[in-house]
């Protein structure tokens, strides 16, 4: 059994530095993005804002990105081997995102300097490794290098090369990477162990969310229906393939949403009974499901604060904080009314 005492104590310390409701209240009252950046400069994010005189909204957002990456890196580095194993699964989605971004960059012949600022290194694939990947000539070279490192993603990329050459787009390779990440994670997880079960719970929620959004996309764009089977990700918890098929056969978003209004799904995403009826578009639904996963992660961390659940809760709280701060920064920049901003931010 891995020892969580050290890492959990450190994570509790980091959790203590997350913004409190009073901080958000102060941020809401600010008149312009410059005041928000000043506030960020005086917080944990300040170390990534070089000079406050030159800092603009882009510098603020860049600091948020770098702090998120740095926080995950820190957690990963302080974990012992067995915890690292689970963290690699949890943070693996950022690896997939990073690899996808490198492939996208290589797809249009971007150089390393263009790609690196878009990556969010989380520790599993460190910054130097990612840099090495961005220096490759083309997509095939990225696949070859990943294979050399023993990463299964390399093999997947090389397998997808033929299709890529024919179609000229990398969406098929991206889908393979996403599906592989989830399949592989489930193979590695042991549900019988408590820690594995907590990670399993978060992953299944993410899969359900992706499948629900894909199904709703298909309802909106009927042309996508022919690929529906290919888009479905296995191993979800409540949103089964049967339900997926039923949803995609619906004529409109409202009908599809009414099918999702089941007790198990509502419980999974902590949605109130009438909440789905006021959702009118896909981004709104996606945000609602993300909040559901956040609440689930927090609930896990509260139910067992002595296991990886605490780290899971912190990771999602941190992601949520970064989204909140970006919303406030952009909101102040775009002069979004205070009331609307308060509705968008999840505290």
């Amino acid at each position, binding site marked *: 059994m891995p020892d969580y005492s050290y890492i959990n104590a450190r994570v509790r310390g980091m959790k203590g530095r997350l913004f409190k409701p009073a901080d958000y209240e102060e941020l809401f009252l600010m008149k312009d993005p410059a005041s928000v950046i000043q506030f960020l400069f005086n917080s944990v994010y300040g170390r990534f804002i070089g000079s406050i005189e030159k800092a603009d909204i882009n510098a603020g957002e860049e600091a948020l990105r770098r702090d998120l990456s740095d926080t995950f890196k820190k957690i990963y580095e302080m974990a012992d081997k067995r915890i690292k194993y689970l963290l690699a699964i949890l943070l693996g989605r950022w690896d997939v995102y990073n690899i996808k971004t490198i492939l996208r960059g290589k*797809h*249009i012949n971007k150089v390393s300097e263009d790609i690196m600022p*878009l990556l969010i290194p989380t520790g599993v694939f460190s910054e130097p490794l990612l840099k090495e990947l961005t220096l490759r000539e083309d997509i095939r070279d990225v696949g070859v290098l990943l294979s050399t490192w023993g990463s299964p993603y390399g093999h997947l990329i090389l397998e997808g090369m033929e299709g890529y050459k024919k179609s000229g787009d990398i*969406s098929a390779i991206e*889908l393979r990477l996403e599906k592989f990440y989830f399949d592989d994670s489930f193979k590695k997880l042991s549900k019988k162990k408590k820690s594995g079960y907590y990670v399993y719970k978060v992953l299944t929620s993410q899969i359900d969310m992706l499948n629900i959004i894909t199904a709703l996309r298909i309802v909106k*764009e009927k042309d996508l229906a022919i690929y529906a089977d290919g888009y479905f990700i296995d191993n979800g918890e409540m949103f089964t393939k049967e339900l997926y098929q039923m949803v995609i056969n619906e004529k409109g978003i409202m009908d599809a949403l009414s099918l999702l209004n089941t007790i198990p799904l509502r419980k999974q995403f902590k949605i109130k009974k009438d909440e789905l009826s006021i959702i009118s578009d896909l981004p709104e639904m996606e945000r609602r499901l993300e909040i559901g996963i956040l609440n689930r992660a927090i609930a896990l961390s509260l139910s067992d604060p002595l296991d990886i659940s605490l780290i899971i809760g912190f990771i999602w709280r941190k992601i949520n904080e970064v989204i909140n701060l970006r919303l406030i920064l952009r909101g102040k920049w775009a002069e979004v009314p205070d009331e609307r901003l308060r509705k968008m931010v999840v505290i």
Partner: protein
Amino acid sequence: MTPDPEPLTLCLIMETVSPTRMNLLIKKNQIGVADEGLSLLRSKREALVKEFFAIMDAVVSARDKLRADMQDAMNRLTVAIAMDGKEKIASASFAAKRDILIDIVEKNIWGTKFSEIEYKRVIRSPDARGYGLVATSTFIEDSASAFEKVVDLILKMVSEENRLKIIGEEIKKVTRRINALNEIIIPKLKCEVQYIRNTLSEREREDLFRLKRLKS
């Protein structure tokens, strides 16, 4: 209707025209041709003005729509940046990058040539944007779709506005021609006819007087 040949002052400078019967016939013929041209130009201007106002309404409403669509796309982009971060949007844009091919075709309406842009629909379905559909957020997709609509509208408007501009210039040109015919060429021709007629009848009177004098 052309105005009456006027001014004596204008007629006074017509002395360069040789007052012969042949010239009288030529000038009368020229007036006929000028009148015919004038009426053709007036019809053309009428048609062009009609076309101009029809396009103008469409262009004005398209401009309003463009302004609203652009605002909507910007709002969606702002939300997408806030939700997913600029890095994820830039990453998706790498995959979605493409060239938009346009053809410039020359068209001819009422003898007026103008170029029109022909292009394939810019708005793509979500699976045609190049990125993996499953893990790309709907905020990014929403914003991409809104901007594709804007580009589509801009391309549509380019042709319309170009047509409007060319028709406007053509109306000006036709109006100048009408004015030239109406106020300078036709009055001048009429004066010349008048001058020739006057000169010929004076000559006739002189001849008659001379003959009478010889007879007496």
